[in-house]
């Protein structure tokens, strides 16, 4: 069904990631040299998880003739205008996060964030964005969060569902400390950097398997954040599970709850049932809706199993292909649930969306922001070498 009201908030939208050449103006002299001398600026930096030509990466009628799907014009014509959105949150899935060189990854992530501010947020006031961080080094990631956080148009930190270690591990905690400090949510988005096999039996043969398996990675991350104590240690932190589905949640609630009752002395800081903690602190973007299309009663019943109408955040997942036309809402949702999902739940999850006059200071340009560790170019656009 179509959206019943104007002013909804789309919590997962994917602009086409910039190639490395477009990032050169946002890099300092050292990295500009590295990137050009090594011909890295010719590389696409496309994540393996999202091949741009595949049918699910872009809806056919959303696919531009030449450019990769997700250009600003398309975002306006296909999403912001027809759905009459108040905001849409950009998750720029750039391949910088899959590099092994932590410093290069950090430099390119910074460049992507500055590119996002200049190329998307400046020209289009309805857009908000996630901060891209180098996931393999939490210290560098936290530094990038500190650098970008003063720009209040950035509302969350972006991590992938499959990486080197479960995200609850303590090595990642500096990311959560920085996000909590600045009132940023942490979004865990579908995708893998393929540091380990996507399943516990190794490597599937097909992309469809990897995509289906994302929901099991979200199960892992959810339990990791609960069991390893992240949600207890950072009580102000909100977590958003993006593009991982949500109909798997009842099973997670029931199984995690039963096992916790059996083994809770192992994790004494988990002092409530895992489902209660998740209902308080974790949110899930709407698309993809993994439920039988022709049977709304099943989805309705599954939402009863989930037991809360505060967990879902509206998302189109543009330009990924999950629905047709403007039917961004599945059948089976009640009116109150829809209104909460479209507006109230996003506003509760992202306090920065409630800013009376959204901050427009640019990343890094804030006088109050901590100094970046490296000498960086100013964030104002520089001439390409």
């Amino acid at each position, binding site marked *: 069904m179509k959206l019943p009201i104007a002013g909804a908030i789309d919590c997962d939208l994917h602009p086409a990631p910039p190639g490395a050449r477009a990032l050169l103006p946002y890099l300092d002299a050292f990295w500009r040299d590295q990137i050009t001398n090594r011909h890295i600026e010719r590389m696409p930096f496309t994540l393996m998880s999202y091949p741009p030509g*595949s*049918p699910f990466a872009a809806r056919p009628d959303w696919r531009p003739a030449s450019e990769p799907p997700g250009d600003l014009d398309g975002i306006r014509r296909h999403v912001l205008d027809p759905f009459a959105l108040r905001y849409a949150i950009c998750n720029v899935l750039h391949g910088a996060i899959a590099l092994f060189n932590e410093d290069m990854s950090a430099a390119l992530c910074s460049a992507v964030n500055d590119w996002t501010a200049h190329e998307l947020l400046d020209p289009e006031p309805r857009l908000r964005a996630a901060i891209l961080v180098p996931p393999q080094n939490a210290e560098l990631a936290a530094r990038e969060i500190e650098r970008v956080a003063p720009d209040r148009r950035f509302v969350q930190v972006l991590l992938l569902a499959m990486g080197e270690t479960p995200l609850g591990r303590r090595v990642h905690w500096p990311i959560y400390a920085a996000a909590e400090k600045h009132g940023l949510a942490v979004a865990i988005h579908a995708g893998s950097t393929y540091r380990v096999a996507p399943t*516990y*039996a190794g490597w*599937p043969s097909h992309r469809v398997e990897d995509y*289906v398996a994302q929901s099991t990675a979200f199960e892992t991350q959810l339990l990791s954040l609960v069991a390893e104590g992240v949600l207890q240690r950072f009580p102000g932190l909100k977590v958003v599970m993006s593009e991982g589905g949500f109909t798997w949640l009842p099973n997670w609630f029931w199984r995690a709850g039963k096992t916790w009752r059996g083994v809770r002395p192992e994790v004494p800081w988990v002092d409530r049932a895992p489902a209660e903690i998740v209902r308080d602190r974790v949110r899930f973007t709407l698309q993809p809706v993994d439920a039988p299309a022709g049977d709304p009663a099943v989805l309705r019943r599954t939402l009863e199993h989930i037991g809360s109408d505060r967990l879902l955040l509206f998302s189109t997942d543009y330009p990924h292909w999950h629905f047709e036309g403007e039917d961004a809402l599945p059948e089976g949702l009640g009116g109150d649930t829809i209104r909460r999902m479209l507006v109230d739940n996003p506003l509760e999850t992202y306090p920065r969306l409630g800013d009376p006059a959204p901050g427009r200071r640019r990343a890094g340009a804030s006088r109050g922001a901590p100094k970046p560790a490296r000498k960086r170019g100013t964030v104002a656009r520089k001439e390409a070498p």
Partner: protein
Amino acid sequence: MNVALREPKAVQRLTIVDCDIHPTWRTPAELYPFLPQRWREHMAAWGPFVRQGLAGQLPFPRMMAGGMRVDSFPQDGSPPGADLELMRRQHLDANGVEAGLLIALSRGGLEERNLDFAAALSSAINDWQLERWVRPEPRLRAAIVVPQEHPEHAVAEIERRAADPAFVQVMISPRSSDPLGHRRYWPIYAAAERCNKPVAIHVAGFSGGHASTGTGWPTYYIQEHFAQASGMQNTIMSLVFEGVFERFPGLRVVAIEGGLAWAPALCWRMDKHWERMRSEVPHVLRPPSEYVREHVWFTTQPVEEPDNPEHMADILGWIGWDRIMFSTDYPHWDYDDPRQAFKFPLTGERRARVFRDNAKALYGLP
């Protein structure tokens, strides 16, 4: 779990089939009579060689009594599951178990890296199951343990046991070197299909060489325990998308101890994304949920427990009441008691199916 359960006399209206009972040996030397001299010496000198950092123990220590019911330790000091008399008194008789399916988890046939040793161990464990358990206690049935990473040996072992009604299924581990749908395992499915025995996929403590999640190793046992449910989903997914059920239309698979409440949502998800991405997998001719509905059976333990027990009835209905088979996991700590496993009312017909008739039909039990 920390107190001895009462052992009521069996006043059961319904006898049951328990699809997951774990026998073990008093000492590994129990296997020696079934091993050639060369492998006895190897076992004594070298021991098991598996893909983890600790020898002779699991790297995620269990929470109580080594993962066992504390009342299941035999008086003579041997490990839980080693004493047939105690198993009879505590479980088979007390719970009215008409047939019990043995799942011989071993530090051997399924996980051993040395494939020749794995083959010898598998044969030995199968002989041991016959001599030590099924012959003395005809209520018990064995599963054919095979060296799954050595399909040639696995097929030979299946063929050697195929005619023996003591063996009702073929057992493999989902924590394999490759996802179980991969072609290297197809000879095993072909052999199982030929001899008309289901393939039992039981969760395993030992890694096949990969982290227990798609994003690396967790920290705590509570996570490792959950990873079995995620991994079983990935296993079913692999069988579907690799085309195993298209290639082996007579194959029947039993998912054991990996949970089941995830099955409907997994099927919805597979169907949805198969529809979008099917040009990548043209060999998958039908919606994935149809293959699961036809080819996959689920055992119940550890059965999920919603706050509202009726929600579990929704799930079982969505899976299909003819595909659910009761199991206890005796003597492990998270054992499900048949009197308490389902906290919602079951009709007499459904109760009979889940606790007995589905398993009898699948395994052809009298």
